[in-house]
């Protein structure tokens, strides 16, 4: 029966008597509760669900109807005989997992007289890295569960590594199932000693070990009589009193990423955002990044009236004393210690998508309120989360963690992740599917980013083009191998040349003999191939040339990347459309035969995809248009 004390232990956490006696006093007290977000790390076998269920139960967050259902379920499918199976309160994700539903994190809520708690519960073994990183990203504290019978396992190391990677400073080592080792202090001490050695190695400076039994309720909400040798806090007591990160966040320099410019009328211009770090008061000198303009805070505006000061974690609207340019994506910071601005970084990347990372492909990078286009370089190494070894890697797959450099298409305002999660943590977004494919943490700006500046030149691209009497263009021929790209491109160049135009034809095969001789045909290499070709084509267009390129260029994303490098209208995508069957029938270079015979890996159309253009500027159907006529059409089109 639910009303019976559980397993003969002392009664559970007591709801405040104030509720019944003086509700007004209770409300005043509860309005001043603080909030602690924590994550529990451990697998099902460690008793994680039982522990969370126990916390919910003992803090009276379970209603009678839920309890009735729980009791019935416990008897029917529970693992605890006639006793309540707390795990059933929070499980229920298993069925969904079987259906293939992605569950990264489930959030649970409970509260005591002093605090409200949000627990991030990350189910399952698979996807563990992705799930744990997601859940940990908003946590102030981590409870790492260890089965007392097992001690420190590989997974304990993995959990601890991830907790530290995400920058959680408060770690509780909950040594669970003490009832199964007879509450033996020697067992507890040995595990703590083992863990300390390992924790120091990976950079966890401090942790609080607590001997518990989630099942029996030992040292969860009340001190257990079975562990008289344990003098530290019980779990809930620790959770209720551990300081949240406020002191550290408020001690940092003031930074607020601007989310929204509030302009209800001509007389009011406010900058809305959530303060990442520091404290701000009217009159404080601030600097707007990246522009660097300085001004002062005039007012801190809220619907409840102006504030005398605001601190990290608060959503506010600031007005400034001067009319300075400031918009979404800018950061308002303390004038005398502003954050850095850079466009090349070293970062740790946690890959979260089924499709692997393609170095060189541009992804959207969102950091704070800034969204920019970013290229990731091939990883310097991947981290084996079980052994913590550095492993060589060309790319990153689902749940892989690696260290890689990345560059953004324009400078961003940032801070190292260790100083600010808000200005150092980012996500990568696939430009085609819009999926969130990775999470990352910036380490530092690369020196070359700060020292290599754009050199202003006096003879501009316009001057180059004017001298040649032509408008620069990049005619980008794309299509399957053997579609007729090179043939048509050749004819077009001959015609343009005859008309006195300055042209240059970049041929895919030729370039692979020189500039790109180090690249193969994997997806990652194809992306880098096109990136380099795009850069070369751009330089030539800058020189005023009409550039013709004939590459398969199978991926939309890369073609779009080149399009975005160039001024609007200069990129002309020409789809040389030959059906696969026809190209294979022609098989001019005999490559299809080889691919079919399995001698060529990653051959476009056979065992590597071709993504046809959706809206090409020019569409040539080679089955109905002979090359000569196609070339005529293209010349007419670009010179019109």
């Amino acid at each position, binding site marked *: 029966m639910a009303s019976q004390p559980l397993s003969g232990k002392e009664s559970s956490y007591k709801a405040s008597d104030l*509720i*019944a006696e003086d*509700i007004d006093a*209770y*409300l005043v007290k*509860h*309005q*001043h*509760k*603080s*909030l602690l977000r924590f994550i529990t790390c451990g697998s099902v076998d460690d008793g994680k669900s039982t522990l969370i269920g126990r916390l919910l139960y003992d803090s009276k967050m379970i*209603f*009678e*109807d839920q*309890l009735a259902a729980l009791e019935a379920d416990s008897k029917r499918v529970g693992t605890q005989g006639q006793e309540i199976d707390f795990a059933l309160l*929070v499980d*229920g994700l298993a069925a*969904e997992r079987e259906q*293939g539903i*992605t569950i*990264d*994190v489930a*959030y*649970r*809520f409970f*509260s005591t007289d002093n*605090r*409200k708690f*949000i627990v991030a519960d990350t189910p399952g073994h698979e996807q563990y890295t*992705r799930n744990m*990183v*997601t859940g940990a*990203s*908003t946590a102030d504290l981590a409870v790492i569960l260890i089965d007392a019978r097992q001690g420190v396992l590989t997974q304990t190391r993995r959990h601890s590594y991830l907790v530290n990677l995400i920058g959680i400073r408060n770690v509780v080592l909950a040594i669970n199932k003490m009832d199964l080792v007879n509450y033996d202090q020697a067992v507890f001490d040995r595990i703590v000693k083992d863990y300390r050695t390992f924790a120091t190695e990976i950079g966890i400076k401090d942790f609080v070990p607590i001997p518990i039994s989630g099942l029996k309720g030992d040292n969860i909400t009340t001190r257990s009589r079975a562990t008289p040798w344990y003098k530290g806090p019980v779990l809930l007591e620790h959770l209720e009193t551990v300081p949240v990160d*406020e002191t550290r966040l*408020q001690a940092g320099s003031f930074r607020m990423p601007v*989310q*929204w410019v509030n302009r*209800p009328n001509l007389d*009011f211009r406010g900058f*809305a*955002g*959530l303060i990442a770090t520091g404290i701000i008061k009217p009159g404080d000198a601030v600097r707007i990044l990246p522009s660097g303009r300085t001004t002062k805070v005039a007012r801190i*505006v*809220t*619907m409840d009236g102006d504030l005398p000061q605001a601190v990290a*974690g*608060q*959503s506010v609207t600031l007005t400034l004393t001067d009319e300075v340019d400031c918009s*979404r994506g800018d950061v308002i910071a303390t004038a005398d210690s502003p954050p850095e601005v850079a466009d090349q970084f070293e970062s740790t990347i946690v890959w*979260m998508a089924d499709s692997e990372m393609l170095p060189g492909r541009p992804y*959207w990078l969102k950091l704070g*309120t800034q969204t920019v286009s970013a290229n990731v370089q091939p990883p310097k190494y991947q981290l084996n989360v079980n052994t913590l070894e550095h492993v060589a890697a060309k790319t990153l797959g689902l749940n892989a963690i690696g260290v890689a450099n990345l560059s953004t298409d324009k400078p961003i305002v940032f801070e190292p992740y260790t100083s600010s*999660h*808000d200005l150092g943590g980012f*996500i990568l*977004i696939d430009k085609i599917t*819009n*999926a*969130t494919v990775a999470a990352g943490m910036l380490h530092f700006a690369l020196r070359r980013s700060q020292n290599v500046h754009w050199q202003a030149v006096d003879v501009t691209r316009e001057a180059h083009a004017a001298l040649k009497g032509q408008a620069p263009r990049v005619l980008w021929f794309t299509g399957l191998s053997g579609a007729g790209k090179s043939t048509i491109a050749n004819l077009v160049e001959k015609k343009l040349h005859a008309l006195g135009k300055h042209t240059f034809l970049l041929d895919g095969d030729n370039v692979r003999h020189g500039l790109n001789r180090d690249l193969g045909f994997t997806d990652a290499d194809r992306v880098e191939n096109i990136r380099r070709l795009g850069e070369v084509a751009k330089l030539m267009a800058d020189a005023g040339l009409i550039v013709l390129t004939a590459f398969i260029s199978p991926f939309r994303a890369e073609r779009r990347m080149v399009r975005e490098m160039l001024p609007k209208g200069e990129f002309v995508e020409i789809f040389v459309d030959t059906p696969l069957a026809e190209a294979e029938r022609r098989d001019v270079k005999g490559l299809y035969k080889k691919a079919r015979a399995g001698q060529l890996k990653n051959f476009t159309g056979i065992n590597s995809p071709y993504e046809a253009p959706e809206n090409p500027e020019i569409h040539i159907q080679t089955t109905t248009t002979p090359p000569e006529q196609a070339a005529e059409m293209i010349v007419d089109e670009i010179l019109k």
Partner: protein
Amino acid sequence: MATTLTHLERLESESIHIFREVAAEADRPVLLYSVGKDSAVMLHLARKAFYPAPPPFPLLHVDTTWKFRAMYELRDRMAQESGMELLVYQNPEAKEKGINPFDHGSALHTDMWKTEGLKQALNKYGFDVAFGGARRDEEKSRAKERVFSFRSANHRWDPKNQRPELWRLYNARKAKGESIRVFPISNWTELDIWQYIHLENIPIVPLYFSAKRPTVVRDGLIIMVDDDRLPLKPGETPVERSIRFRTLGCYPLTGAVESDAATLPEVIQEMLLTTTSERQGRAIDHDQAASMEKKKQEGYF
């Protein structure tokens, strides 16, 4: 000495941040407004997020014509007070067929007026983001719901295709035709909502407070007789009971509880001492198996 933000201050800041992110990144957002207590808090938070400007989006009430009279009154008053445009949408097909909970049952009623009505309204106005007041503590299946929940062009929720949410970063990018439901109060509990209403003096429908009201009892639910939209069965006579509502849906579908809690603190007190969870008063949850999950996939939320 660091200032410690209270749990309500942190929740409020988080919700405001979410409202502003959507306003900055969406083309045409809308606030779904159902006039319940969660809607009241949502509206209040939206106003705070953009003060002194009014929120840069309209309110949308997907009306079933079966709301309590007091709800319609508060709705119109709040729209005026907030300076926001109020859009009321009633599914013309449901209206024409006279769909009601008595003759057609709660499942069809909800599907036609709410699920279908919402889809139609979103299509009609071309909204790409709809703010909803769902909370993760409401039931087990909600605990894992994202703050930004993606819907296909036909408004279906694809549980296999949702995005991880890290830090305070929300990915609001979507293809043409796709839409997002955003839940700014995901991390609030029922108690947080009540405490916040109390602290901020947020106007709510008086039906949340106990009063003598005419009622009948059907299938174990206490149903309030709001007006003659409720056809009485033979032999049924309304009885005056001291009742209030813990949750407000369509009035014949929402059961009242007997109560003497006439003030907010008393309501909160009762809620804390009571032992029945919030959704129990809603007939919708009892209908069909695992109904919340199903409704979500179909686009109810």
